[in-house]
């Protein structure tokens, strides 16, 4: 910004600034304001209605002593890491395959992107049926003659999270593929010609030349996937309801249940504040590297 020194700096691009005011206000009031409100009230003993009786860190002590919360955090971490890696890998592979100038590209693209047009609730229900041992995949394979085939990830405490992950991947990979495909198409044809002349194999070109050049696309994708991971809720509700037992509980569900089922607002606020802290811990170093780092060299 070169507005320093000029008295008219404030009025530069006036119409653009006026146009931005509603969004700025929304961001300040809705996002920042409500976050602060939530954090403040997480230090009270609010139940059904917000109360102002201060209880210090009690809500946080109880939160971190609650096993369901700890399980939720662990589940989200496992789901998040696997989702992030697998969605990127699958999405990129699909995009690279489609990019080989194949026939019916439009058809494949539509098929892969289609799941994204469905809501998480529908996705969850569809996969709940598919993974149900009595009328899903297991039943279909058994009716082919493989009587001992067992595939019921949603009914086993140890595998339920992967059942949810399959549905999540099915939903998200198509979008990742589209973004990646756009990125691949943005790579100059000359780059490919140059590597071909140098005799570099295609997989090496992808890994060492194309992917680094696609950095902005990867970052956009990363942000989209991460935000979908943090707010994971509806998929779990539709697919497992958090079960069996507490095996597929997630933080967003904990917050909702605390606030509206247990009627304990402050406990829900404390949990959502912790989720906010987790997001900030991830975002600040990244934002610093991405924006701050560049400026200084």
């Amino acid at each position: 910004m070169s507005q320093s020194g000029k008295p008219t700096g404030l009025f530069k691009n006036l119409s653009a600034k006026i146009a931005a005011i509603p969004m700025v206000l929304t961001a300040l009031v809705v996002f920042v304001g409500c976050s602060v409100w939530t954090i403040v009230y997480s230090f009270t003993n609010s139940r059904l209605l917000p109360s102002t009786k201060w209880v210090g860190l009690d809500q946080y002590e109880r939160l971190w002593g609650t096993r369901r919360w700890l399980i939720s955090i662990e589940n989200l971490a496992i789901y998040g890491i696997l989702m992030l890696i697998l969605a990127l890998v699958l999405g990129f592979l699909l995009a690279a395959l489609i990019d080989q100038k194949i026939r019916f590209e439009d058809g494949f693209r539509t098929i892969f992107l289609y799941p994204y047009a469905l809501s998480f609730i529908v996705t969850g229900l569809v996969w709940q049926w598919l993974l149900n041992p009595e009328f899903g995949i297991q039943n279909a394979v058994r009716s082919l003659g493989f009587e001992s085939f067992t595939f019921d990830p949603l009914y086993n405490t140890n595998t339920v999270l992967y059942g949810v992950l399959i549905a999540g991947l099915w939903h998200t990979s198509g979008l990742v593929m589209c973004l990646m495909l756009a990125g691949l198409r943005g790579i100059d044809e000359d780059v490919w010609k140059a590597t071909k002349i140098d005799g570099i194999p295609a997989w090496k070109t992808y890994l060492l030349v194309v992917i680094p050049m696609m950095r902005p696309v990867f970052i956009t994708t990363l942000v989209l996937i991460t935000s979908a991971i943090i707010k994971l809720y509806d998929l779990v509700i539709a697919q497992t309801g958090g079960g069996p037992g507490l095996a597929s509980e997630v933080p967003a569900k904990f917050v909702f249940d605390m606030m509206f089922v247990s009627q304990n607002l402050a406990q829900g606020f404390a949990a959502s504040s912790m989720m906010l802290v987790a997001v900030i811990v991830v975002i600040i170093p990244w934002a610093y590297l991405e924006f701050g780092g560049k400026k200084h060299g």
Partner: protein
Amino acid sequence: MTKFKTYALGMLTAAAAQPALATDLEVTHWWTSGAEAAAIGVIADGFQKSGNTWVDGAIAGAGGVARPLITSRITGGDPMGATQFTHGQAMRELIEAGFMRDVTEVAEAQGWKDQIFPQSLLDSCTFEGKLYCVPSNIHSQQWLWLNNAVFTENGLTVPQNWDEFVAAAPTLREKGIIPLAQGQQPWQKQLMFSVLMVSIGGPELFEKVYGELDADYAAGADVAKVFTAAAEARDLMTGSNVQAWNEAARLVIDGRAAGQIMGDWIQGEFTQSGMKAGEDFSCLPGLGVHEYITAAGDAFYFPKVDDPEIIAAQDILAGVIVSPETQVDFTMAKGALPVRRDVELRDPTPCIEKGMEILKAGHIVESINTMVSPDTVGRVTDLMVEFFADPGFTPEAAQAEFAEIIATAD
């Protein structure tokens, strides 16, 4: 012209004949299933007879969805005329904050104290000596439902109590039958545990734990028996992988499972599939051990409003809900028990008769929802969800955690 005149005249006389002008009263509720919708229709009809208009505010989804909507409308300054709500402590904060209207005058004018039975229904509506809700029906939870054919076909006699049921279980297992069906939803696990506490432990135990919140007692030997029974029940339920309670009932009806612990609302599922109480299926109140039932159910609340017409309509609705005519039809439709002693039900099934007898004998326990806060219920539920899902969770460890919850409960 003459036609119009007669029409207008007719309107005038009709209006004059009515005691008050028609008022629109919006009533919110989450009774949307077939039997429930028929039941709320009975109340609506009764209310419309007074000349006022019932505006139906059905909210799709269960209480978990409807409760936040209802409370936010009341606290947000857009109250409905009346609302169905959980009978118990859930509404307490709104009452304390002065959002709700008391209907003490109606109750006194109509002498509810002498008619409504059991008394505890009114007690849990009362706050600082004033009555804030109208109980509409009683639902009891402590029932073991059995498919008779499953037992007789496998050479067993139909059990008369929990111990006989547990003893019959190994034979059923051999035949590939799940002894005890249950859905996986959290509230069903909590219900199961509460039922075991009342039925196996007895009403005094239940009162001591949730009423007096005696944490030492909750850690003691008496409650340990309940946890042992819960661990037994957990083994009996292995293989019951359905989600909803009516899917579990389906397992029992189809003979794939032998029995189910569930509230009296399940009876409709059995009768609708052509089974007869006493002949094709049995019901054991209190699991045949301690024949006590919870007398809690649903209630209607009235938000505070300024409009005198709406206040008058609220009073009329309050009277309609507990009137004997409504009570008979309403509870028949909903498959529940009436809140007054002086009504005669038409052709009650043996199970409903048993329920009425227990009620009349005063063998009643309070519901967990009226004894402790929703927060405490939530914590107990979480514990039970974990306990029933994980065979490695010992009853001793669960009891220790349970005692901890009771120590900090409210």
